[in-house]
């Protein structure tokens, strides 16, 4: 499974057609804030490349803490970590994947990772994201699906709303089927930081 990197490669190079529309409240007539009034209190400013690299690596470490109790990433050498960052920075998929593929493996006796790294983003709450512990495999050995995850940690996302207003569940701007096994999504549709970043968006009315 982990050799099948074509999906991620397609995503990396933008070959999966994505189409999005802006919500009404994302469109503003207001003038943009002058650059020198950067909202330090609300946004990460990223003062240097080192800061961004550190942020990226700390996401990677957190993802591996969930997947492998940090064993895989800690076994890597400093140069492997550097290669992950350089691959991302220089847009070199093969350089990146040469190391990242190891983070997508799991022991033969298991059916998947220990926990799945994910974050769910919604527009309806003040909370920046939802992140919880969630196993890819149920006690009976069945693979958990994307739908199972949402039902457990974010039921309002897929519960039918009154008036029939549904939500779109997006990863990389596309809507994977809710029946997709979460383990597969984690191996193939994770972002470069190894997290599944899932957006819940109200269905556009037009």
């Amino acid at each position, binding site marked *: 499974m982990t050799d099948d990197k074509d999906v991620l490669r397609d995503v990396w190079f933008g070959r999966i057609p994505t189409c999005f529309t802006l919500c009404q409240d994302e469109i503003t007539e207001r003038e943009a804030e002058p650059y020198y009034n950067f909202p330090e209190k609300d946004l990460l400013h990223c003062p240097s490349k080192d*800061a961004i690299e550190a942020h990226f690596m700390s996401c990677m470490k957190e993802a591996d*803490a969930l997947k492998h109790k940090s064993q895989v990433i800690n076994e890597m050498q400093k140069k492997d970590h550097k290669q992950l960052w350089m691959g991302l920075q220089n847009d070199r998929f093969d350089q990146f994947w040469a190391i990242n593929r190891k983070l997508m493996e799991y022991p033969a006796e298991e059916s998947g990772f220990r926990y799945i790294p994910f974050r769910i983003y919604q527009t309806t709450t003040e909370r920046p994201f939802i992140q919880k512990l969630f196993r890819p495999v149920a006690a009976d050995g069945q693979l958990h699906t994307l739908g199972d995850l949402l039902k457990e940690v974010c039921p309002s996302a897929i519960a039918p709303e009154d008036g029939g207003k549904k939500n779109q569940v997006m990863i990389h701007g596309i809507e994977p089927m809710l029946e997709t096994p979460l383990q597969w999504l984690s191996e193939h549709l994770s972002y470069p930081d190894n997290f599944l970043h899932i957006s819940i968006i109200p269905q556009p009315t037009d």
Partner: protein
Amino acid sequence: MLCTHTEKFALRSSCSPPAGCTMDCSDGYMCKTHLQIKNGTVAPRPRPSAHEQTGLPMEEAAELALDDAEAAEVPAVSPVIRYEYHVLYSCSFQVPVLYFRASFLDGRPLTLEDIWEGVHECYRTRLLQGPWDTITQQEHPILGQPFFVLHPCKTNEFMTPVLKNPQKINRNINYVTSWLSVVGPVVGLNLPLSYAQAASQDM
């Protein structure tokens, strides 16, 4: 350095050692704010008005609302800095994590370099060797605002020996107090001894 004194910060930190930890990702966090004059002299002690939010599991938010007006009793020349420390629980690493930020009273945030000026010499050299390896800026998981975060990946490593010994001699320790006494001072949060005394009485 003046700390707004609260024993409650420690008493509510009844987090079990990771091995036996079964807690869910809670929605709470512990928060501690203190004010400091930039040149290090002590400001008059403000009376803390602590209000608690009940009903939160594990780490309740014991937020201290400080009256900025009381801090203004200080001579206008020395800038006053507001330090904020939050303790959250990381599900991913299954340990507590220290989030912190600092700003002037007008809201201007301090940079990481500014914060280190308040840190004791003995920690500074080590930290400066790889500042971004140990501290990153991240979104606070509940507030969403940028905070500096001390990497939790080494926490298990240094806490395991701390936990082993008391278990041998059947003495209770407070995990969070011990942990905080190790990581806090690195980023300018010093714990008074009374925290440890309160912790051992609490058990």
